[in-house]
Each structure stands twice: as structure tokens, then as C-alpha cells.
């Protein structure tokens, strides 16, 4: 079965650079979530989209922005990168928004800021 695809899988950037992470949800899933997991930490919700509109916003820095496109894929844009942005970034998708819907997570993008 098709899973959530994230690219790139690994990314190395220097401080103050920009990065773009991409997420391709499971076909026919209309909701995308982004989570950040720092080293030794638990995943933290960043932002979500439902039917190409932002549906919820969590602890996402103002330096980050995201959108969901007409084909439902999503991109997380990160600017002015800081050392503390080094983390695993997971994208998850679901069919629908309500709490009863299982979220399927991608393999993650490991971002290293040097």
C-alpha cells in the first residue's frame, strides 16, 4: 500500500540558509500534518492543512511557513535556519480532520543545521 512520502530524507544546511521539505500524502488523503522531533524529544505539532487550507497551527516559528497544493502535497519552508532547528521533521496524512481519524506518518526528513 502507498505510504506517505517525504523528501529529501536527509538535508544539511548552514545557519541562516533556507530549506524546503516536501510531503506527499497517501492518495485520497485530504489532511496533512507537520511535526518536529528534536534529538531525544517527543514529536511536536507544527501545522496542519485540510483541503488546501491551513486548519491548525501549533508551535511553528514565524521563520517557517507551509502550504498545501492542489494535488494535496505539502511543503514546509524554513528560513534563517538556526542550530536549534536540527531535528526530524515528520509529515502525516489522514482522511478527514476529526480526532477519530488515524494519522499515517512518513519516514521523516532529518535536517541538520551546521
Amino acid at each position, binding site marked *: 500500500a502507498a505510504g506517505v512520502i517525504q523528501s529529501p530524507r536527509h538535508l544539511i544546511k548552514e545557519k541562516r540558509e533556507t530549506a524546503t521539505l516536501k510531503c506527499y500524502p497517501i492518495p485520497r488523503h485530504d489532511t496533512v500534518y507537520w511535526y518536529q522531533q528534536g534529538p531525544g524529544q517527543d514529536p511536536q505539532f507544527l501545522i496542519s492543512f485540510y483541503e488546501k487550507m491551513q*486548519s491548525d497551527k501549533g508551535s511553528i516559528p514565524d521563520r517557517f511557513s507551509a502550504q498545501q497544493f492542489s494535488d494535496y502535497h505539502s511543503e514546509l519552508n524554513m528560513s534563517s535556519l538556526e542550530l536549534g532547528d536540527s531535528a526530524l521533521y515528520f509529515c*502525516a496524512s489522514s482522511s478527514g480532520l476529526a480526532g477519530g481519524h488515524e*494519522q499515517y506518518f512518513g519516514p521523516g526528513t532529518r535536517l541538520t543545521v551546521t
Partner: protein
Amino acid sequence: LAKTTQPISMDSYEGQEVNITCSHNNIATNDYITWYQQFPSQGPRFIIQGYKTKVTNEVASLFIPADRKSSTLSLPRVSLSDTAVYYCLVALGDRGSTLGRLYFGRGTQLTVWP
């Protein structure tokens, strides 16, 4: 927001049944109780979800008492490959803009020994 509390770590041996209990005293009427499993450097994986009483699937059972202030994840006959972090989550029900986001608290590191 219903905060969840679960043990930081648990140890077990292969073939044993493991029960991980989570407390969520402030759970709201429409909230679901959801459990995820995470291996190092991988995205969380949905295990089971329930609203009340008992739910069973091919990998686990979830027991929820009538007051819904706690829940117990039961893993029958664990194997070495079940070594992972297990997260108990309250998946928000229909609460407007916060639909669907998952709050990951401190999970339980389960270690299965041979």
C-alpha cells in the same frame, strides 16, 4: 486539553504480555484515546484507538474503563521487535480549528529482553 501520564519506561521478556497504563483525567466527551509506536528515527505508527470499553485488533488490545480517565494498552506475547517508545495520546474530537492535531507527551520506552 487532556494531559496524559504514562510510565517513562518498562521492561519485559519475550513471550510475556505487557500492559501500559495511561492516565488522562481531563479527557473530554468527544476525545478519542489513541496509541502510537515509534522506533528510533522512524515516524510514529498507529497501533490502536478507542473511545470506550474494549477494542482489539491484530496487534493489541485497548481497555478503557467507564470513566475514561485512564486506558491500558495490552501487547500480547511481546517479541524483541516490540522494543520501542509507546505514546498514549488523546486525539481531539470536534473542537473547531484544533481538529486532528496529536499532542505527544512523554512516551513509554518499552524494552523487551530475550
